């Protein structure tokens, strides 16, 4: 088998592989940087909760559209995800419940509701698709949606970069100088939900955060500067997508889980070999003179 057969032929020969690849690259570009901010805000598990929260909305979209239409399911998922994010934020502000606890309650309820709605009408196959995604079945319109979300994510992040950094690093200061911290927090949550909706068809509701959090963790192990972390996260997410697709093609594995496993392998590698990783801890380099 030549290098061409290994790395390029699957994409040259099959349109569905090309579309899956473009989808993966877009998802990586958008979700990687978003994941870095989620992690820095100590909201890693919140992302997970939100991806489940997307489900009932997507399920209703599925019922209405009658098939796995990404537009209908995306719209429903967007509404459901945002409502859960805002509602649980409001509940934690207005009651004694901590934000993680109120998030957990909301997402468990929405996951149960979503699975119930899908099982009302659909088959077990549909349920599997909703939970684990169908990246090889992405059509042109789904691709436009994913591409648009990735572009919007990068543009909005660039525009709100300064206030978002200030809000993460020192929210008290931003309040004191009259910056509208909560506005940027909500804008950021909107981006999170949008990216989850984009990942939804590709990776399913259970693994949609995979391309956010694993690359973000990789980035934090390799760098201490925020721009570099975002670049590393985006590249490692996109590379996980590409390598995962190739592996799933040649080894005949399910694509979504293979992509996430590839990201997990990057993560394991980084834990061992990154500057702040385990090997450095066990085999420290000599300290410097000054």
């Amino acid at each position: 088998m030549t290098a061409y057969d290994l790395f390029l032929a699957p994409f040259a020969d099959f349109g569905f592989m090309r579309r899956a690849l473009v989808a993966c690259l877009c998802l990586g570009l958008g979700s990687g940087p978003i994941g870095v901010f989620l992690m820095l805000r100590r909201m890693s598990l919140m992302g997970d909760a939100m991806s489940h929260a997307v489900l009932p909305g997507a399920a209703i979209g599925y019922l209405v559209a009658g098939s796995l239409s990404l537009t209908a399911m995306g719209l429903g998922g967007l509404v459901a995800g945002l409502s859960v994010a805002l509602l649980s934020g409001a509940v934690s502000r207005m009651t004694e419940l901590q934000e993680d606890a109120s998030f957990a309650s909301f997402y468990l309820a929405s996951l149960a509701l979503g699975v119930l709605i899908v099982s009302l009408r659909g088959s077990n196959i549909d349920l599997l698709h909703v939970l684990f995604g169908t990246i090889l079945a992405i059509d042109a319109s789904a691709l436009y949606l994913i591409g648009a979300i990735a572009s919007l994510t990068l543009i909005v992040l660039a525009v709100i970069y300064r206030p978002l950094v200030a809000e993460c690093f020192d929210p008290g200061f931003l309040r004191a100088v009259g910056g509208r911290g909560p506005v940027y927090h909500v804008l950021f949550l909107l981006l999170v939900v949008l990216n989850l909706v984009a990942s939804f068809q590709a990776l399913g509701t259970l693994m949609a955060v995979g391309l956010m959090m694993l690359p973000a963790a990789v980035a934090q192990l390799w760098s201490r500067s925020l721009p570099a972390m975002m670049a590393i996260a985006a590249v490692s997410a996109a590379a996980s997508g590409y390598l995962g697709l190739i592996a799933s093609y040649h080894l005949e594995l399910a694509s979504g889980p293979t992509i996430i496993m590839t990201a997990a392998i990057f993560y394991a590698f980084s834990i061992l070999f990154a500057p702040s990783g385990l090997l450095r801890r066990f085999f420290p380099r000599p300290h410097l003179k000054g």
Partner: protein
Amino acid sequence: MTPLIRLDNLTVAYHRHPAIHHVSGAFAKGSLTAIAGPNGAGKSTLLKAIMGELRPAEGRVEHRLGRAEFGYLPQAAEIDRRFPISVIDTVMLGAWKKTGAFGRIAAAEVKRAGEALSAVGLEGFGKRHVGSLSSGQFQRVLFARLLLQDAGIILLDEPFTAIDARTTRDLLDIVSRWHGEGRTIIAVLHDFELVRAHFPDTLLLARELVGWGPTADVMSSANLMKARAMAERWDEDAEACEPQQAPAP
């Protein structure tokens, strides 16, 4: 004495229990005041109420100042120091009044940020990551940010806690320079020695006002005993405080 900020029967409560209770008085323009008192006396709460960050349960804070005229140093624990941001970027946040969320950062501002870093003794630290600094060095960075903010009223919340003696001395020099420039400074402190040595005025707080005026008069041992006794009093089943029960200011 021109009053700059007036507290009128100010009460701020958490869960209906007052953290500060019926406090009245005024901060003069150009004054250097320490807010002193035991733990749980409501010192930080008072500072946040002055900034308008906490809403009074009763009474009010009166002033004619815009938000931009306040410079605020939060307690070090409120900042996430593991966030990947450089020293110079942290100082540059002090230019927020000019740059805002989206404005261009002028070269002059960058130069001023560098000068502010030199003024706090951290020349050449600009590119360092804030997570690599000691607590003392990080506090110097926050003072550099205040220098850049160039605010008329400066509020400091526990600025010298967990800081080495030399840094405390350097930062106190900056505070007295601000005082000399006619800025109004209000600092929350729990170190009574520091208050006596460096702050002309003191507001002694133990949820209620114990004393407010020249430090030598306020920090009498009788007042300090009173403050400790008041702060330790906490009544889970306290009755509602009727407005007419408020002591006359």
